[in-house]
């Protein structure tokens, strides 16, 4: 088990314990994603003083406050914009953005595609729970077809966004998808994102049991997560599938990787080439 560093990883060393218990609902997957992130931070040996976590608004936006690091709870949809300024001003910091499906793909969608295009070094962890949980369960860009939400009482007729396909198309340096059911795999994926010198986009399939699950009669958190699992097709971490792939399965694992220049370095190189020493 030492390859999983379970012997040295104690999540409490990375949490603001005086803020616990956290405010997330029973069954919410965000806490598991948080554990995966902090485990990856631990494995990468990133000092807490050098870790800057930038969040947006929503349930995902509240996750950052529990981390014992430099944490920023910014405005709705804009954490990537704030993080861009922070990462350019302070390349010595390890900048991590925690965002949600509404924060990142709806109100913040423009910032996502340009962050991918620019390829500035940071890691963006999007917690996808298919819903605006904090505001009471409204439809989001990743809500499945036909789903009931507080603003789709007749079922959701909008197609869903594939955030990873979007990130790949926009040029992100590293793109992957994991799920909270598979904590070690999600941890490894985030670790690879942290290690990648460029913009890393990682989608964590989370769940909203209390609001989305209840509204759609999906049962308990374990039932929801197992149903998610059956809809996944592994590309890299093939340790989960116990039933045949489904036709419309989502791919998980490392989905995209390229060697495009990291933006901060490219900017400095362009300047250096034109300014005589």
């Amino acid at each position: 088990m030492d390859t999983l560093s379970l012997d040295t990883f104690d999540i409490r060393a990375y949490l603001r314990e005086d803020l616990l218990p956290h405010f997330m609902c029973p069954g919410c997957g965000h806490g598991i994603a948080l554990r995966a992130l902090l485990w990856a931070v631990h494995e990468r040996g990133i000092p807490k003083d050098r870790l800057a976590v930038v969040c947006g608004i929503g349930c995902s936006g509240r996750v950052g406050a529990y981390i014992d690091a430099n944490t920023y709870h910014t405005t709705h949809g804009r954490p990537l914009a704030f993080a861009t300024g922070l990462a350019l001003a302070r390349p010595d910091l390890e900048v991590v953005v925690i965002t949600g499906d509404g924060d990142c793909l709806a109100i913040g969608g423009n910032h996502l595609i340009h962050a991918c295009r620019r390829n500035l070094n940071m890691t963006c962890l999007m917690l996808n729970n298919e819903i605006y949980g904090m505001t009471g369960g409204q439809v989001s860009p990743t809500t499945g077809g036909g789903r009931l939400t507080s603003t789709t009482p007749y079922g959701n007729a909008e197609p869903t966004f594939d955030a990873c396909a979007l990130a790949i198309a926009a040029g992100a340096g590293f793109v992957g998808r994991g799920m909270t059911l598979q904590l070690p795999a999600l941890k490894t994926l985030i670790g690879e994102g942290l290690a990648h010198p460029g913009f890393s986009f990682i989608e964590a399939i989370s769940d909203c049991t209390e609001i989305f699950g209840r509204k759609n009669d999906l049962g308990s958190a374990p039932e929801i997560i197992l149903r998610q699992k059956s809809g996944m097709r592994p590309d890299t971490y093939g340790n989960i599938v116990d039933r045949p792939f489904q036709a419309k399965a989502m791919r998980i694992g490392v989905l995209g990787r390229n060697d495009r220049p990291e933006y901060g370095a490219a900017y400095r190189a362009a300047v250096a080439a034109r300014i005589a020493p």
Partner: protein
Amino acid sequence: MHMSTRQNLQGNHACALAAIAAGCRFYGGYPITPSSEIAERMSLELPRVGGVFIQMEDEIASMGAVIGASMGGVKAMTATSGPGFSLKQENLGYAAMTEIPCVIVNVMRGGPSTGLPTRPAQGDIMQTRWGTHGDHPIIVLTPSSVREIYAQTIRAFNLSEVLRTPVILLYDETIGHLVETVDLPDPATIERADRKWATGPREGFRPYADPGDGIPAMARPGDGYRSHTTGLTHAEHGFPTQNPADVDRVMHRLLGKFDQHRDLIDSFEALHTDDAEVLVVAIGIAARAAGRAVRQARAAGMRAGLFRPVTLWPFPEDSFREHAARASTVLVVEMNAGQLSLEIERLCAQPGKVARLTRFTGEPIGPAEILATIQERARHGHA
């Protein structure tokens, strides 16, 4: 050795050069007329001093990036005009709430909406004060010459650092595109202020506790404080609170944090106000025209004066009241439908004392029209 240099400079270029001189090392912007020369000049100058320029994907992102850079400890600025300034409001409020220093330049064009993009106006006077939602402190400086843009840009950075607040530099398109001869000061003589950085014990650090002067020291990421910054109403420890007593205490500190520092903040120019019967109040290019009209009126034997707020918000109201006390008429000259007038009317309780000369056609108000209005009011005052 005196190292000042004389240059023919456009207002917007003066703003960029002053920002560099003030220590600005990050600019996040988005193209918009009539402010784009500031971004263009910053994109050229910043790399020469080790700074970073970035053109963001939109106005909202540029405001976010500026705040993000300043959170990292780097002095940061953006510039825009009406439509872009509207888009920046939410993040501007975030900077006010979290007390992140930054400078926002608004080069005013005609509005509302897309309005008159290449024409001067002064229609954002109230928006700079109340543009973002909720009660909040803000400082707005309004230069009226190229030389003053240079000086007030430096001052904007210094005030934003010392008082941990966004500062808005507000001037109209005419001032922004005006080219004037300016003696740029020797960089060695420029006073630069830096924010207070937290230096005390890490354990039990309270990032929003009042140290006595109303301005908490800021925790620089990497210095070991590992504090939390949020736009949610937060208590002294930096984390959200809904406790009414906590909210009352922290909001009183936030909204009153300039009170102890008005001597630093207030600034104005007074011309012939001592015995002025007709006192003109104006900013920007309207104040330039008003100054000429007042001198002409004096030459013609009329007791006219000019009160020009350089700090527009918080309005230098004590000084204004003193200078306006002996006037029978206060004439507000502004390029909008009447915004500064509202503040002046609030400060002049006497009915009928305040007169307005306003225009929103995209043309500046000239000295002759102001002089004619002064003459009319002076006669009215004698009658």
